């Protein structure tokens, strides 16, 4: 397995492996064509109408922000999938992994490029679901199943809040197109619904980007395979919340509640997470917490909202995606070769894994913010933006200083510790990993160096257009490595000094932190479990009350509720008094056949109420059904009549089959029968009253007229019922047949389930 540098990387996993690498690479290549127009300040709109009557469009908006994100997603995606061909290529479920990862990638690309809020939401949920599947990829482990469910529940709850917020925002703005909404910032901020919209959007963004107090799912999500952690939980998905904040900044940003919510939550997450990062001994966990820190810093600076702060956030976004993905891939490679990620067990790997060390070192230097890598520029601009703030200057600069110092320490823990020093004997057989696995981290690390040395590249193509998109106006973006000794530069020097001191004492620091966590009374994970247990208990309690499992009780409950509801409506709306019914006149117009059918139906109903044989009761109900079908025929609704007849036939067959197993009607049931009959008569009478009341008014024939007129010229059909079903209202029909399939499958599973149980019981006996 020893692979030397220079050998062409072999792609494992057969077709799945090739597909998984080529698709993101092709998307990346396709996206590069937009770099030039976007850098010139243009925005590109592409779209098709999807459900125009509901204003749902599949439309895409390519501006600086979405293009930067899309390039990171597809570029890092290609490197991560290449890495996975080796990391998981021999896993029996590898094709499934590729499917999930590509599904996620599609969702994430759609999310950042979407121009329609509803489309954005759909893509948002796709990333939530595929993240769930990827975290739980190792589905045999209870821990990863729990982590996956936790991530799903938290982010999906946030997603629901977001949907509500989006609908409110769409109503306020009068459009669901982002390109329209982003230009209406002033009207939206002045609307009384602004605050609810803001809260709902923040709930979505904070859960997705793991801001305090929803932070705890992210470190748990590290149960996923390392390529997933590198891709979803550092470079892309968790940034979706940050993306949303950045995207909505022109529409929702710039107010006091926005400023304080983001600055406080972001700042607190930043410090809290970087303290927890140095507490960890598993390097992957260290990286997980520094990711939280980065998300906090991004939130903090988007909240601060000055053009300097937005600029700093956008640089830091690019910087962080590059180095963090590289570091995750690096630690995965170390784990792959040595079998451990524990910081105390890894020493002196530099000589055995020189390429990995080089990749990791480049990324770590960027993370520590040391020149000439782009991480230095990122940190410098964060300081500069923090110092230039009018409000919250001390809080923002202070948190970012503390975080930078701790990042320096974390960078040391994750790369200097495992790679430098004396190699322990246990690791002496370690060798360099396969090329497919180090190409990714090395490329990302090298990009950090390239962007640092020629900062104009990142500035022109990525950071400047992204800043304009978020800030909502063109502003000067000028990145540089070093120009003069100023306050930010002095803060950087102080960061290095403090970081170095703390790194040398990091073991003691870890012990202090461990002690602090031990004595702190707040426990997020156990609290989460208690919330879930409470929910389950609530569900069990209400199911016990509502779901008796006895069909008769369900029917009584449903019909009783209907009767009470109708009575209440009659009373409240005073429906009955305006009814003017000429009973004798009505009866005169009836023909003999109509009387006969009514008699037929009544006889069937009476028989069903009186018989003591189930079979007779079913047949009697069949008589009622056929009678109703005859009425449909009489009033020229042949489609409905045919359907009614067929359904009656099938119902009788189904009930007759089930009947073989049912006990005969007992006396106990007989005693209840009069009550049931009375309820049936009451409900029937009330529904009749409703129908009479409806007929009193003028029936709005606009829809009927429209369909009658449009059916032939527009849909080439003369049967209006069918044309409505398959053409005018095809979406509704599609929903209905989906329900039919789901119901059939559910019933099938239930029936099969009882057989399995019976078989198991039979074996036990």
């Amino acid at each position: 397995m020893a692979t030397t540098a220079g050998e062409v990387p072999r792609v494992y996993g057969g077709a799945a492996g090739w597909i998984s690498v080529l698709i993101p690479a092709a998307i990346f290549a396709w996206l590069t064509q937009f770099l030039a127009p976007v850098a010139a300040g243009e925005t590109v709109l592409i779209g098709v109408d999807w459900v125009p009557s509901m204003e749902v469009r599949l439309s895409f908006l390519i501006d600086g922000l979405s293009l930067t994100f899309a390039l990171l997603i597809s570029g890092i995606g290609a490197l991560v999938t290449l890495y996975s061909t080796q990391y998981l290529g021999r896993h029996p479920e590898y094709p499934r992994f590729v499917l999930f990862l590509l599904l996620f990638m599609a969702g994430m690309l759609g999310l950042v490029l979407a121009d329609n809020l509803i489309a954005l939401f759909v893509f948002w949920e796709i990333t939530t679901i595929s993240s769930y599947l990827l975290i739980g990829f190792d589905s045999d482990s209870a821990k990863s199943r729990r982590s996956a469910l936790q991530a799903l529940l938290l982010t999906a709850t946030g997603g629901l809040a977001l949907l509500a917020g989006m609908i409110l925002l769409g109503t306020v703005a009068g459009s669901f197109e982002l390109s329209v909404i982003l230009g209406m910032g002033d009207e939206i901020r002045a609307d009384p619904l602004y605050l609810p919209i803001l809260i709902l959007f923040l709930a979505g963004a904070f859960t997705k980007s793991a801001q305090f107090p929803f932070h705890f799912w992210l470190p748990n999500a590290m149960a996923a395979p390392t390529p997933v952690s590198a891709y979803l939980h550092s470079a892309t998905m968790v940034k979706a919340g940050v993306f949303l904040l950045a995207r909505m900044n022109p529409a929702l940003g710039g107010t006091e509640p926005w400023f304080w919510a983001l600055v406080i939550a972001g700042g607190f997450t930043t410090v809290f997470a970087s303290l927890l990062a140095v507490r960890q001994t598993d390097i992957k966990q260290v990286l997980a917490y520094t990711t939280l820190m980065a998300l906090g810093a991004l939130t903090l600076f988007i909240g601060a909202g000055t053009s300097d702060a937005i600029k700093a956030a956008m640089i830091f976004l690019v910087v962080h995606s590059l180095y963090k993905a590289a570091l995750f891939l690096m630690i995965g490679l170390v784990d792959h070769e040595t079998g451990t990620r524990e910081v105390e067990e890894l020493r002196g790997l530099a000589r055995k894994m020189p390429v990995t060390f080089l990749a990791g070192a480049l990324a770590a230097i960027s993370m520590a913010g040391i020149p000439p890598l782009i991480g230095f520029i990122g940190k410098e601009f964060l300081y500069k933006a923090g110092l230039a703030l009018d409000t919250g200057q001390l809080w923002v600069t202070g948190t970012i200083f503390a975080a930078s110092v701790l990042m320096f320490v974390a960078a040391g823990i994750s790369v200097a510790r495992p790679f430098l020093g004396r190699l322990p004997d246990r690791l002496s057989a370690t060798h360099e990993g396969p090329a497919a696995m180090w190409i990714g981290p090395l490329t990302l690390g090298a990009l950090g160096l390239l962007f640092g040395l020629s900062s104009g590249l990142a500035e022109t193509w990525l950071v400047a257009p992204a800043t304009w998109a978020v800030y909502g106006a063109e502003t000067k973006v000028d990145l540089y490595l070093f120009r003069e000794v100023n306050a930010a530069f002095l803060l950087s020097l102080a960061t290095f000094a403090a970081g170095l001191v703390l790194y040398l004492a990091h073991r003691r620091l870890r012990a202090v932190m461990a002690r602090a966590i031990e004595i702190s009374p707040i426990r997020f994970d156990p609290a989460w479990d208690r919330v879930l247990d409470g929910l389950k208990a609530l569900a069990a309690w209400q199911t016990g009350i509502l779901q008796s499992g006895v069909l008769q009780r369900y029917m009584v409950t449903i019909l009783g509720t209907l009767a009470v509801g109708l009575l209440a409506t009659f009373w409240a709306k005073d429906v009955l008094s305006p009814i003017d019914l000429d009973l004798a006149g009505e009866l005169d117009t009836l023909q003999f056949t109509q009387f006969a059918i009514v008699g037929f139906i009544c006889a069937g109903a009476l028989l069903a109420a009186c018989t003591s044989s189930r079979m007779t009761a079913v047949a009697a109900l069949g008589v009622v059904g056929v009678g109703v079908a005859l009425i449909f025929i009489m009033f020229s609704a042949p489609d409905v009549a045919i359907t009614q007849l067929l359904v009656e036939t099938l119902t009788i067959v189904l009930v007759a089959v089930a009947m073989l197993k049912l006990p005969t009607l007992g006396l106990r049931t007989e005693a209840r029968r009069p009550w049931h009959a009375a309820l049936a008569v009451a409900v029937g009478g009330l529904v009749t009253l409703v129908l009479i009341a409806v007929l009193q008014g003028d029936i709005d024939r606009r829809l009927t007229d429209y369909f009658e007129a449009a059916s032939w010229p527009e849909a080439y059909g003369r049967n209006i019922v069918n044309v409505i079903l398959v053409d005018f209202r095809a979406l509704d029909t599609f929903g209905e047949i989906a329900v039919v399939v789901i119901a059939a499958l559910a019933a099938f599973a239930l029936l099969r389930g009882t057989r399995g149980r019976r078989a198991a019981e039979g074996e036990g006996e």
Partner: protein
Amino acid sequence: MMNSVILNAATRLLVSLLILFSVYMLLRGHNLPGGGFIGGLTGATGFVLYAIAHGTEATRAALRAEPQSIAMVGLGIALAAGVSAAIFGDAFFTGQWLFLGATEDDKGLPISSVLVFDIGVYLVVFGSILTLVLALEEEV
């Protein structure tokens, strides 16, 4: 399963007639009473009759495919018919029409995504009902 000679003999004839009739109902549905729902119900009735006369095992063999797969395929066909509109640049679920051999006076043979959608509905109803009936007959 009933052991009745009359039922068995009549079923052979009736089932084929019912299925033929169900397809007829499906195809005429756009202009005259009928359509996917009614056609699917009629076709399912044919196989339900077959199941009563010959038992569920013979019915499954006669169907060749699992009824739940038929329903799922139907749902897929209906969705594909709806999505196809997007390929032609129209909104989701807009009917797409093709008139084969159309002349000035005669509109020719109409082929449409709407018909494909109705075929999907037919298969869903047909498959779902048989899923239920066969499972019930086997399990109860």
